């Protein structure tokens, strides 16, 4: 070893260092942590599973969707937030759509997509928010109106031509013909409905705020979470759902509200994070009533 040229010795040392450190930091350390964690905190280390009738029905830490086989909300359960991955723990993640993603690609009737299925176009983040708001509003019996959303639940966005100067043409790009545009006239120009397949990219994008005030449907109800597995909803969203859940179950609203309180985690130490309601725990508690 000592007689070998320095550069070979160096690489041998490097190989041995990687092996030794892998055994120490990559095997001994995680095994030791696992051993101690399993003894002291076995339930949490195993994923905080919740059992009902001896069968696991979920993890308290991982959100799930409370929809039926058709994907429609089940009325007697509190609903979770939208998820970019459909609450599949094997596909965690966010939508990653940007804050100015406001223009849809309308589906062209009769056209096929890359896989041969019917063309579905592409819905912008704004339209997704508007559509969710409308759907939640209808489910809970409140107004789903929001700023920058049309009454039919898409983004209220005009493409104005030419991009610079006095408008000569305006199109409500997210409203497919024959829909009536959300606004009839824009700066003296009649607004057209969007024709699927037409390229409007040359126009200037003008989102229109509209007259909607503070929305009745809370922010977390219309946005996808970061993980796609958010186990929580805001207190506001839980309270919005309480009358519907109480009605479906035939129990007093106050009873439901008391349970919401019970399954709300406040801010840690009073200042960290936001109050959050654990949806799975809340729904399980309701089932046990």
């Amino acid at each position: 070893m000592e007689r070998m040229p320095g550069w070979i010795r160096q690489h041998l040392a490097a190989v041995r260092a990687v092996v030794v450190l892998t055994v120490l930091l990559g095997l001994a350390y995680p095994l030791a942590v696992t051993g101690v964690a399993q003894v002291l905190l076995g339930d949490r280390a195993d994923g905080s599973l919740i059992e009902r009738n001896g069968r696991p029905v979920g993890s308290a830490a991982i959100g799930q969707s409370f929809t039926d086989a058709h994907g429609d909300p089940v009325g007697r359960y509190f609903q979770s937030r939208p998820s970019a991955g459909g609450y599949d723990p094997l596909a965690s993640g966010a939508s990653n759509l940007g804050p100015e993603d406001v223009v849809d690609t309308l589906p062209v009737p009769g056209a096929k997509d890359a896989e041969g299925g019917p063309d579905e176009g592409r819905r912008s983040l704004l339209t997704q928010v508007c559509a969710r708001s409308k759907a939640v509003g209808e489910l809970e019996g409140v107004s789903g109106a929001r700023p920058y959303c049309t009454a039919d639940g898409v983004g209220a966005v005009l493409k104005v031509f030419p991009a610079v100067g006095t408008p000569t043409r305006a199109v409500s790009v997210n409203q497919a013909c024959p829909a009536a545009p959300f606004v009839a006239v824009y700066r003296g120009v009649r607004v057209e409905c969007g024709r699927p397949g037409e390229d409007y990219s040359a126009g200037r994008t003008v989102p229109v705020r509209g007259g909607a005030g503070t929305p009745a449907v809370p922010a977390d109800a219309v946005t996808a979470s970061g993980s796609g597995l958010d186990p929580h909803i805001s207190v506001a969203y839980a309270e919005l759902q309480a009358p519907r859940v109480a009605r479906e179950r035939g129990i007093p609203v106050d009873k439901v509200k008391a349970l919401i309180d019970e399954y709300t985690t406040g801010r840690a130490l009073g200042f960290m994070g936001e109050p959050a309601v654990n949806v799975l725990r809340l729904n399980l508690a309701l089932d046990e009533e």
Partner: protein
Amino acid sequence: MAALFIASLVLTLALVHKPFGDYMYRVYTGDRHTPPERLVYRLIGVRPGTEQRWGAYARSLLAFSAVSLLVLYGLQRLQDRLWLSLGLPPVTDHIAWNTAVSFVTNTNWQAYAGESTMGHLVQMAGLAVQNFVSAAVGMAVAIALVRGFARRNTDTIGNFWVDLVRGAVRVLLPIAFVGALVLVAGGLVQNFAAPHELTTLTGGTQSVTGGPVASQEVIKELGTNGGGFYNANSAHPFENGTSWTNWFEILLILVIPFSLPRTFGKMVGQVRQGYAILAVMATIALVSVTLTNVFELGGGATVPQAVGAAMEGKEVRFGVADSATFAAATTLTSTGAVDSFHDSYTPFGGMMTMFNMMLGEVAPGGVGSGLYGMLVLAVITVFVAGLMVGRTPEYLGKKIGSREIKLASMYFLVTPILVLVGTALAMGNEAGLAGLLNGGPHGLSEVLYAFTSASNNNGSAFAGLTVNTPWYDVALGLCMLLGRFLPIIFVLGLAGSLARQTPVPESAGTLPTHRPQFVGMVVGVTVILVALTFLPALALGPIAEGLLS
């Protein structure tokens, strides 16, 4: 609440940095080798008592990193034949290359989706090991540079193997062990189970995943690494379960980078010099964290306005403000872990995360890399100041001559070149443009962010960009490799040439480098150099997006 959250972190760091910085000072300057360490040195086959010149130090470091790269690549490519693969196939060649580079360079860029790509063995014996050692390498380089300032008339700057082992075993390992258990208490999993399927309340199925997550999560933050066990990274409830684990993870990210200036001050024998560096870091960091919070809470863009809050890509338990604080912490350091998705941030909030990285990750920066980056900027500052008054610049008694300033300048030029050339190449070729999820200025932001993140070894992303393609895997891999090791070589060269010098005595004309005046100058140099380099690119991306809306 946001202010309290930030203030509690500042207070904790203020309390901890002194004892912890002193502890690291003892770790790196002590003569004693503990019996387990002696065993490790014997197994590795190195003599811990010998000192290395900068060239030998650099060669040892590069050899270690090269072997690490090969081993990590091999582990991924052979995972189906090893234990605990969960039945997953070998990782694709270009993703395996990208991931191996990414973890060895302390970048931890995620071209892969953890839960569907990597088995438990690759995660803990491959990725997590690099989380430890790439962090220890960064600290070793920083300590070597500090020795360059502290020593006189010598050729040597320390022993790489000793610095590596001590950093991993004495600094990182004990904190990681305790921290992992704290995180399990916060709901993180720690087991070796494969995903198991269960039936949900409404009759659907769901696969609940397992794995040695807490032990990896803690070092992912502590070593400013950032590569998640899961695709959703620290937004995933199994990686970051509660509002207080979120606070704790931010603390882990910041604790070493903010404590190393103390170690630096002790090693050069003037604690106040350490405080000056700390003041520069803290000033920039506080301004940046505050601005990111202001922009995100302001919610200035069409979709956040429609929603009523910038909640897209954020978790309810963290909320908008604490997510913004995490985002600032992760990009001010070289971490790149995310608890919310920066792609969906408001234009100016997203710009702050990019700007933080463009600063060169020096406020406080990655473990070790933050300190050596900041010291290089201090060298450039005394040079600029020296030019103004017409004196030979010096820092801590060492003359900053032409060799020193050349090395410092080359250090500084590496990342802007990689970022701007890389972004230009991506925007000018079809393989690059194919990855964009969003159109318009936001598309450019996605690419600019990717090259900024890779070249600065951060690893966070505007994750809409599809990067698991051969073109991006190779291009970003090269940026990570060059963005890590070229600066390291220049820094070690600088350490070598500083250590050789005889210190010049302080005179009336010496620029005092511990006063607020100097702190202000370094902040100025840091921000102005970045602004001049990257402003045109930022103007076409996030600024255009923010102003058009």
